[in-house]
């Protein structure tokens, strides 16, 4: 599948080398694990989803370092600095999403067994097996994709993922991945995809198979897992257009990932947020649809995985480009209240947890620290592949280790100490597009520019540079430093969180056109209200530099955005 994608191939090979060296018992040439005979299935209990079975391929992966590392990566990053009980890990989440993905598949099979068995009968999907066995294999591929979907995470989850985009190799690989599947993907998804594609996973599963008793393989089951399809499901795609609904189960506006993390994050933090999963499962639908083949991307993808299928010709006045028939995961219109709950739940999680000012302070500080560390690696000629492997070796405990708290670089060590001991920067100003002032268009344009990919980084850099220059000018403790040194010493930065994105979710009406959620309830009003009143661009600084930061921020904002009104700054200042 990766013949034409050298960066993805390179990263996958590097991951194999690294796993073999680091965990020889599991992934080396003489690997011996799993050592004992494997049970066909085992039961694992989960506080949210109860008692669930996991099958031997999953058990082999769960008991390997690939999944065990996730036990030590907090699902909500540094949110436990604010919500002490938010200690749940990527490991629990990964098991949870297996359960939810499985339940969605079963719910679909219960109501659309005819369609799914017809899909499973197709020559390009069945690989010569009967449709029941093929449906079993498809479900198993879905479960493995769910299990592996977060294996590319590094310390404190998304905080480190944001630094991935600074690694050139991962950026290039993300471009290749986007080309391969015909849709935009970020650096964060590359590693889980490559891990699923690795020889390490394939050989571990093959060895595990030898450890299962023959009588545990039942008739009407197919265990010949297609790991290409598993890797594609992780990034919301599939190896055949008729299997796209499986990609939707793993990664889409209605995906199992969201269903698990929302409830898990809320429950662990102690927040009373719920949605009606039973109704979701009762109503979730499989709908025939089509996907246009933009720039022949899908044709290339299916050729790359060996699926022999051709695009259909455009239809005059209806479908402009060649297209593929497909099946998509949808909720019917009557399930809109479930979607409503999910959307509210997501917005509330942003408000309570992900965008909490102290959580942002901790994660922003970690991001600055990781940026400094990756810059340091570059200056020491540590290449990108080594950087990627370092990240894949980290977990949250690494913050106490030699690359962080015990680093010989005093700045890195001190900042790590602050994170570990919650000596966090304070919020100096918070800006929102809804703050009224004369010339209100300036703040609106500022916020709009922050949403433009090509202007955002430059604008933040300009503002921070002006902030740093002013800090140097007014604070004697920073005299003689450059702007960036002053910002680092004062723990000052401009924090621009990613706003909540409520993906376009289409609700089925049983016929074309389907309707988007916005048709049924005011999702746009909610997101607008959130962003106007609860989404902030903030300026942070260490407590000992807050007074200087207040003055410097004002000068920087006047200078860069052009707002000069006292009342504006008064309303944005965090008073204590």
């Amino acid at each position, binding site marked *: 599948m990766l013949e034409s994608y050298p960066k993805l191939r390179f990263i996958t090979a590097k991951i194999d080398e690294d796993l073999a060296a680091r965990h020889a018992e599991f992934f080396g040439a003489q690997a011996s694990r799993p050592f004992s005979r494997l049970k066909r299935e085992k039961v694992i209990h989960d506080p949210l989803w109860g008692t669930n079975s996991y099958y031997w391929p999953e058990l082999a992966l769960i008991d390997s370092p690939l999944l065990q590392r996730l036990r030590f990566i907090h699902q909500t990053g540094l949110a436990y600095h604010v919500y002490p009980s938010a200690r749940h890990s990527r490991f629990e989440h990964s098991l949870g999403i297996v359960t939810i993905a499985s339940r969605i598949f079963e719910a679909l099979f219960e109501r659309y067994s005819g369609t799914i068995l017809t899909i499973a009968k197709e020559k390009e999907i069945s690989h010569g097996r009967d449709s029941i066995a093929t449906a079993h294999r498809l479900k198993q591929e879905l479960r493995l994709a769910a299990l592996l979907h977060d294996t590319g995470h590094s310390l404190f989850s998304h905080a480190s993922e944001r630094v991935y985009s600074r690694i050139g190799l991962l950026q290039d690989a993300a471009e290749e991945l986007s080309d391969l599947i*015909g*849709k*935009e993907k970020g650096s964060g998804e590359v590693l889980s995809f490559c891990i699923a594609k690795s020889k390490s996973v394939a050989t571990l599963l093959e060895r595990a198979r030898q450890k299962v008793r023959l009588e545990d393989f039942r008739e009407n089951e197919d265990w010949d897992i297609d790991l290409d399809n598993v890797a594609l499901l992780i990034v919301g795609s599939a190896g055949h257009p008729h299997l796209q609904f499986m990609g939707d189960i793993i990664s889409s506006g209605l995906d199992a990932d969201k269903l698990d993390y929302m409830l898990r994050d809320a429950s662990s933090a102690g927040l009373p947020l719920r949605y009606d999963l039973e109704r979701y499962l009762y109503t979730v639908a499989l709908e025939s649809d089509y996907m246009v083949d933009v720039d022949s991307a899908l044709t290339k993808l299916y050729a790359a995985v060996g699926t022999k299928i051709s695009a259909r010709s455009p239809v005059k006045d209806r479908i402009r480009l060649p297209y593929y028939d497909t099946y998509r995961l949808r909720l019917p219109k009557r399930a809109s209240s479930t979607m409503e709950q999910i959307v509210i739940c997501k917005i509330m999680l942003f408000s309570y947890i992900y965008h909490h000012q102290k959580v942002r302070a901790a994660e922003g500080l970690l991001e600055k620290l990781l940026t400094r560390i990756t810059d340091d690696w570059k200056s020491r000629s540590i290449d990108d592949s080594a950087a990627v492997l370092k990240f894949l070796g980290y977990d949250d405990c690494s913050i106490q280790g030699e690359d962080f708290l015990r680093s010989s670089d005093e700045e890195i060590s001190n900042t790590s100490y602050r994170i570990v001991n919650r000596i966090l920067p304070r919020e100096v100003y918070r800006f929102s597009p809804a703050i009224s002032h004369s010339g209100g268009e300036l703040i609106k344009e500022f916020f709009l520019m922050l*949403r*433009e990919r090509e202007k955002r980084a430059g604008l933040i850099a*300009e503002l921070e540079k002006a902030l740093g220059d002013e800090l140097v000018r007014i604070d004697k403790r920073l005299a003689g430093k450059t702007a960036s040194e002053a910002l680092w010493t004062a723990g000052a930065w401009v924090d621009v969180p990613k706003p909540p994105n409520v993906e376009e979710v289409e609700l089925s009406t049983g016929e074309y056109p389907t309707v988007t959620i916005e048709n049924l309830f005011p999702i746009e009003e909610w997101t*607008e209200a959130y962003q106007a009143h609860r989404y902030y661009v903030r300026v942070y600084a260490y407590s000992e530099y807050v007074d200087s930061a207040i003055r410097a921020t004002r000068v920087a904002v006047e200078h860069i955005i052009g707002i000069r009104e006292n009342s504006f700054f008064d309303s944005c200042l965090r008073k204590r």
Partner: protein
Amino acid sequence: MKFGISRSVGGTKGVNYRSEADAAAWSYIMAEQLVLGDVVRQLALLMKEEGIVLAFKNEEPWHLLFFRMKQELATDGPSFLRRLRFDADNRYPRCRELSEFLHALHTTCTAGVENPYFDELELDQDVTRVWREAQQHLKPETKQFLSQSLRIACEEFPHKPNA
């Protein structure tokens, strides 16, 4: 060929603006090359003048417009067009970056939508004043590019009934 505006303000960033109008044009001054957001802003103004409905809830015309712009105008047009990515898992070519920007117009209060149907974007008067200010400084080749884009927009978007 460089697209964008011909004006320069001392060649520095973070300049001391001489007037509010200068400050208002700052967003364009930062981008030396015309980028997606600039084109959406300027096209929205031109489309409004042409009596075109600025669709919001149904994003399809926007995506088809930029998809065609990429196909028909990218060779000699601004460089951002060549790197725009359109996803292949929808009923039409869909650009996530464009979608994000259209939603940002609304969520940053830059443009309103007519409730409760969210059919059409309504541009904020104060903000469009800023955009018009920048419009005056567009290079001739940028104006030509925008007029070619407007021609495609006329084919892809619905018009107001009495326009």
